[in-house]
C-alpha cells in the first residue's frame, strides 16, 4: 500500500515535470524546423543591403510582385552593382561571389522559407495588395512573414509559417480593414505571429460542410453582404480571405 502511494506520487511528479517542460518548450515549437543555422554558400549581409543602404527588397527579389514565388536574384544581378564597387572587392564574401561569376555557376543558396508542397501561397497577390494598392512600406510588408530582415545577415525563418500563422491575419481581417491606421510594430517585428493574435489560439477552419459559420469558410456572397455595409474606401482595401480549402491547398 505504502509502496503504491509512493509510486503514484512519483508518477504525478514525473507528469508535472513533463508538462512543465513541455510548456516551457511550447513557444519554441515554431522554430522546430528552423534552418537559420544552415550554412549558406555566402553569408549574404541583408543588414547592409536592406538596412544600411535601404535597397528595396524587390530590387533583388524581382519576382515577388508578378509571380507566386519571390525568387532569388541571379549572380548577374549581384555583379551588376559589385563590379562598380571596388571598395569592397577584397572582402572574402565578394571574392567568393566573383569566383561563382567567373566559373559561370549559380550560387547554391539554401531555401529558408520552404512551404509544404500542398500549400499555394502567392507572393504576387500579397505584394500587389499591400505594397502597390495600400502603399505600405515594402520592408514592413515583407516583414509580416519574413521578419525584420534588415537586421539579419543571411535570411532566417523567424515566423512560424504554419496554417495558423496564415489565419492569424486572414481571419482577423475578414470583414474589416485597418487601412489608414499605422501597422503596429508587433505585427511585423514580433517573431511569432503576423498579428498580435497568438498563433496557438487560432481555430483551424473547416470546409463549409463542417462549419458554414466560420469566417474562413464563409461564402463569397455572405462576405460581400457583410462588407457592403462598409464605406467604399475601406471596402476596396479588404483582404479577401479564402473561404474554401482549395484556395490555398493544392
Amino acid at each position, binding site marked *: 500500500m505504502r509502496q503504491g502511494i509512493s509510486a503514484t506520487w512519483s508518477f504525478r511528479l514525473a507528469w508535472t515535470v513533463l508538462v512543465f517542460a513541455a510548456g516551457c518548450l511550447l513557444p519554441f515549437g515554431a522554430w522546430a524546423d528552423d534552418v537559420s543555422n544552415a550554412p549558406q554558400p555566402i553569408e549574404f549581409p541583408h543588414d547592409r543591403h536592406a538596412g544600411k543602404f535601404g535597397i528595396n527588397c524587390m530590387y533583388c527579389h524581382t519576382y515577388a510582385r508578378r509571380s507566386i514565388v519571390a525568387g532569388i536574384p541571379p549572380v548577374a544581378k549581384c555583379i551588376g552593382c559589385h563590379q562598380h564597387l571596388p571598395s569592397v572587392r577584397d572582402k572574402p564574401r565578394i571574392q567568393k561571389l566573383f569566383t561563382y561569376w567567373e566559373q559561370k555557376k549559380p550560387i547554391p543558396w539554401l531555401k529558408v522559407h520552404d512551404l509544404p508542397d500542398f500549400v499555394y501561397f502567392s507572393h*504576387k497577390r500579397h505584394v500587389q495588395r499591400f505594397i502597390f494598392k495600400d502603399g505600405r512600406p515594402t520592408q514592413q510588408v515583407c516583414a509580416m512573414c519574413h521578419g525584420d530582415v534588415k537586421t539579419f545577415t543571411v535570411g532566417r525563418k523567424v515566423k512560424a509559417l504554419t496554417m495558423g500563422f496564415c489565419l492569424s491575419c486572414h481571419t482577423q481581417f475578414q470583414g474589416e480593414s485597418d487601412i489608414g491606421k499605422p501597422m503596429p510594430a508587433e505585427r511585423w517585428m514580433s517573431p511569432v505571429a503576423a498579428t498580435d493574435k497568438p498563433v496557438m489560439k487560432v481555430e483551424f477552419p473547416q470546409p*463549409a460542410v463542417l462549419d458554414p459559420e466560420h469566417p474562413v469558410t464563409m*461564402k463569397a456572397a455572405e462576405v*460581400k453582404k457583410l462588407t457592403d455595409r462598409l464605406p467604399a474606401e475601406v471596402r476596396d482595401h479588404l483582404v479577401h480571405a479564402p473561404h474554401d480549402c482549395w484556395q490555398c*491547398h493544392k
Partner: protein
Amino acid sequence: MALKRMLENWSRLRQQDYYAEEPYMWGMAIDLNKCIGCGACVTACYAENNLPVVGKERCGSGHSMHWMRIERYWTEPEGTPEIEQEEASDFPERGAHYLPMMCQQCNHAPCEPVCPVAATYHSPDGLNTQVYNRCVGSRYCANNCPYKVRYFNFFEFWKDLPHPLEMQLNPDLSVRDKGVMEKCTFCVQRIRAAKDAAEDAGHPEHVEDGTLMTACQQGCPTQAIVFGNLKDPESKVKKSWASHQVELDRYEQDKSEDVRGYRVLEELNTESCVMYLDRVRDTEA
C-alpha cells in the same frame, strides 16, 4: 463530432440556391460525335496532373491511376447493304463508340457525405474538391462513386521516377503520396491561375471565356471538349448546355427528342457538371 456537424449542415448546404450568388460554376460539354478515341486527353491529363504511369500489372490488380479514361462501347449498327459492303474493307464499321470519363464534379456528389474527415467537399465554384493533406485514405469515397473515377495511391509511385524525370513534374499541384485518394480536379491549378490573372486584369469576378482551358481540352485534336463557366450566359459551355436543353438542378431533363445532350447516370440525381452529346451515326448513308 465532425460527422454530427456535417449532418447538421448537410441539408442547408444542399439547398439549390446555396451557391446561387457565386460567380462561377465550372462545367464541361463533351461532344461524342467529335471524339475519335485517340487518348490525347488522357495523355495531356497525365502530363498536367503529375499522374504516375503504373503499368499493366498494377492496372490488372486494380491500382490504375488515370483521372481520365476513354471508355469503349461497341454497338454494331443495324445491317444495311452499305454496311455489309463495308465489311469487305480492311477497316469495317464495328460501331466503336468512345466516351471520355473523368470526375463528373457532381453537385450532389455521393463521395462527399461519406468522407470521415471532409477531405472531399463542395467548393463554391461547383467543384468537387479533394484536399490531399486532409485525406486519411479510408477509400469510402471511391466505393461510393457511381462513375468509378476516384483513384487511390496504393504505392509511393513518385519514387519510381528515374532521376531526370522528377524535373517534369508540375509544381502547381502536389505529388500525391501513398495512402491518398485523388481524382480529376477540372485542372484546379489552371482555374486558380486564371482567377489570378483575372484579378490582375481588374475583374476578379469574371474569367473571360476561352482564357481558361483544362489540359484535356487543350490536348483534344477535334475540340470535342468544351470547358467554362456555367454561370456566364455568354460562355461556350453554357450555350452548348442551353442548346441541348440540359439544365442543372434537374434529375430528369425536360427536353425535346432531337437534342443530344445528356449526363451520365443522371437518374442517380448526382447533378453532374459534365454534359455529353450523344453520338449520332448515319446508318442510311
